């Protein structure tokens, strides 16, 4: 029991860390946004006198986050007057801390229950949040993607709060239907896919916002949305989102196939259109449509990004709505 309580405390600590990281990342975006506005004013004021190339480097869309391997972002960012990225650095450190705390909480939860810690909605949420954060941090090891920080840690905070307040169940063993190594594989891969889709969704949502702002949307033209200028260009966001979605789609395909193999053993049929199966199928088809849309003339870019938004909505519904509303065979939430 004590281990279980410690696990719970660690989840609260992780949620707190993500909330702190959210504030830090938001501060960073606001600073970058301010720097952009300054640079714009500067550009307007000194357009005649200053070398346009210099200003161009500063105000060019997405300069703070250049293409992969184009060197440290600080180097390009400084062209418009040395924006301190200290807040983003704090956000990253606290995100690492929160993710480590969450990992510890998950391990302790598994020890307390005496099994793999992803057998009900509460645990699924914890591990899914961990995967989303891990993907975010992993992407950051290869390229600067700190612009995602505010959104990923924000979602992480919400997910953990939901887990603690709505989905919480005591740590305990599982019923015979769940006693198989497929619990580790099928559910584990499903969580990995969900976490990956989460980060990709953030990228696509930013892509849509940024694209609308660039296209002169009246709402998004407000200075309040100025931070969007410091995100990568819509094309870069689309490319990054696709890479994660491709990984997520393969993982999801495996989830569905693994689930079918398990269902064949556990329920005596590999596919029976149980609500969870229906929605997993819908998710799969929507992301398949996304992959096709990307290569269809007239459907790439914005329209394809909407598929990601729709697909992620289906992922969330498949997890929450199907578990809580429908009466199916995947009723393992542990909530009554």
């Amino acid at each position, binding site marked *: 029991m004590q281990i279980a309580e410690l696990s719970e405390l660690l989840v609260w600590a992780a949620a707190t860390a993500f909330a702190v990281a959210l504030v830090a990342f938001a501060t960073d975006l606001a600073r970058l946004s301010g720097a952009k506005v300054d640079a714009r004013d500067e550009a307007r004021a000194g357009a005649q006198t200053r070398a346009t190339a210099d200003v161009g480097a500063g105000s060019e869309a997405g300069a703070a986050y250049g*293409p*992969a391997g*184009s060197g440290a972002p600080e180097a390009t960012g400084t062209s418009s007057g040395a924006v301190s990225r200290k807040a983003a650095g704090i956000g990253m450190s606290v995100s690492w801390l929160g993710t480590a705390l969450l990992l510890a909480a998950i391990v302790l939860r598994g020890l307390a229950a005496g099994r793999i810690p992803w057998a009900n909605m509460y645990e699924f949420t914890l591990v899914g949040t961990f995967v989303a954060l891990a993907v975010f941090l992993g992407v950051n090891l290869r390229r600067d993607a700190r612009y995602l920080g505010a959104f990923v840690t924000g979602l992480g905070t919400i997910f953990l709060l939901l887990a603690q307040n709505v989905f919480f169940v*005591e740590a*305990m*063993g599982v*019923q*015979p*239907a769940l*006693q*198989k190594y497929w619990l580790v594989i099928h559910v584990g891969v499903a969580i990995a896919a969900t976490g990956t889709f989460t980060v990709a969704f953030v990228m696509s949502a930013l892509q849509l916002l940024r694209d609308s702002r660039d296209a002169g949307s009246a709402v998004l033209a407000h200075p309040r949305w100025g931070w969007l200028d410091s995100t990568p*260009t819509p*094309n*870069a966001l689309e*490319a990054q989102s*696709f*890479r994660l979605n*491709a990984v997520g*789609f*393969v993982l999801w*395909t*495996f989830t569905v*196939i693994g689930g*079918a*193999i398990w269902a*064949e*053993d*556990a*329920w*005596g*049929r*590999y*596919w*029976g*259109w*149980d*609500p969870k199966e*229906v*929605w997993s*199928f*819908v998710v799969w*088809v*929507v992301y*398949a*449509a996304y992959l*096709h*849309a990307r*290569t*269809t*003339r*007239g*459907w*790439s870019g914005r329209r394809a990004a909407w598929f990601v938004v729709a697909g992620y909505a*289906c992922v969330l519904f498949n997890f929450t709505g*199907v578990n809580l509303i*429908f009466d199916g065979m995947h009723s393992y939430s542990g909530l009554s």
Partner: protein
Amino acid sequence: MRETKYVPEGISDAFAEGDRGVGDDAARGERPASGSEKGPGGPGSESGQGLPRLGWVGTLRWTWRQLTSMRVALMLLMLLAVAAVPGSVLPQRNQDPAAVLTYLADHPTAGEWLDRAGFFEVYTSPWFSAIYLLLFVSLVGCILPRSAAHWRNLRDRPPRVPSRFSRFPAQGTAITDATPDEAMAAVAAHLRGRPWLPAFRVDVRGHELSAERGYLRETGNLVFHLALVGLLVSVATGQMLHYRGQAIVTEGRGFANAVVDYDTFENGSWFEPSTLTPFAMTLDSFDSEFETSDVAAFGQARDFTAHVTITEPSGETRPETVKVNHPLVVDGAKIYLQGNGFAPELTVTDAAGEVAFSQRVPFLPEDVNYTSRGVVKVPDVSPGLDQIGLVGYFLPTAMIEADGSARSGFPLPTDPLLILEVYRGDLGLDEGVPQNVYRLDTATLTPSVEDTGERVKVLLRPGDTVELPDGLGTVSLGADIPRYVALDLRHDPSLAFVLTFALAALGGLTVSLFTPRRRVWARAQVADGATVVEVAGLARGDDAGLDGEVERALGAVPGSTRSTTTPRTEG
């Protein structure tokens, strides 16, 4: 270009177009020429000026091209996703027929229309079938020509070197003291890769080189799509050939694998009853374990095991076990443990003193503690007497609440109690209308009541014999409470094919998404006494590694004194 490559209608693919527009050095005209033919503009541009005069062959061709186009495939995919949703919202006949009846009773008008439109059998409805069949026709119509084109492409040499490199997304130059021949040989060797891990297919013509890698990308894509077709065909074949039988078996009893021995039996239309292997199975005992140490999870199921003996047609017997998640495979058929409960042995003696009923009666659990409901129908009473119906609950661990209601407090029989209500009259079994054995229609029956008007409750503990009210006779409960198991036996010969195609689809998908398809061209020229090597690269789809590929190719140039690459611009 010897022949025009097949490209699906409406696909946007710089790589494929690169062959025609860029790779062909724009000699055949502008890229939009190929674009407008395939674009949403449709058939108008094909059939010349004025209104299209297609004729019926033309119309067919146009319809076929539309059906196999990317846009229609996309629409069908979206439709498929939307069409699948109602099946999760509305009850489905093949899963829960009782829920469908309830829904129809609750929504008489809407329910009837929904029923006519097939909303209670969504996944076998004409409209759902139409969508996925059209999608597969579209897929086949797109994939087969693509496979042929890929097959030709696999045997072709890489496309020849274009005259200008400046159009390509990645390019660079290196200057070296080596001769053009040496430079070309070094770049070719680098691109070919190690013999055991070949990278590029390289074609050197003089001082020009063209190379291509990642044919597996298209191969994987085609394998994925063809595997989906195989998956659909195997699932359909399995539906035609499969059979499934359900039987309730109590401890010490058994069943034989024959159609008549199952309580319910369903099969595909190509199934032959003679193909059933006539083995027999006996349930020796049934074990169940429940949580007793953890307070929060007290009484939760932890393990179910049915110990059985299989008798093969040859007469050979062997002990086996069936567990949840671990079906028993006998002669290619799988036996699943789908449910369990208690089947108390009840004996009813009628008013004339004759034994009218003596059977084990399965009681169906209604909660986690096995508060189980059961029905006893006693039609075979002595002539002239009322038939008897008993309805009630079996409680493995009886707990009587203060208000007189009773329920079970634990799933195992620590304090078993049987509570029955008694009815008399005509059970309606002689009219030949099939009845549910687990339900008693009490509308036409007379209940036994106390003087206060309350229903009489007959209480029985194991070994008890109790008088029935109103002089109907006696009922006795056997001293042992046998367990029963609900078994599901299924045979589907297509399973291996379904799995193979599913894994092939997964493999093909992974390869097609993560294999970069790249073309690299190089040219060496002598200028000002030095050799200038130009390299250009083109990739299919997003490829963050293309610049690196060009850089590495340049780096392979021996004695390179200076090299520059032009990074791609975004967009």
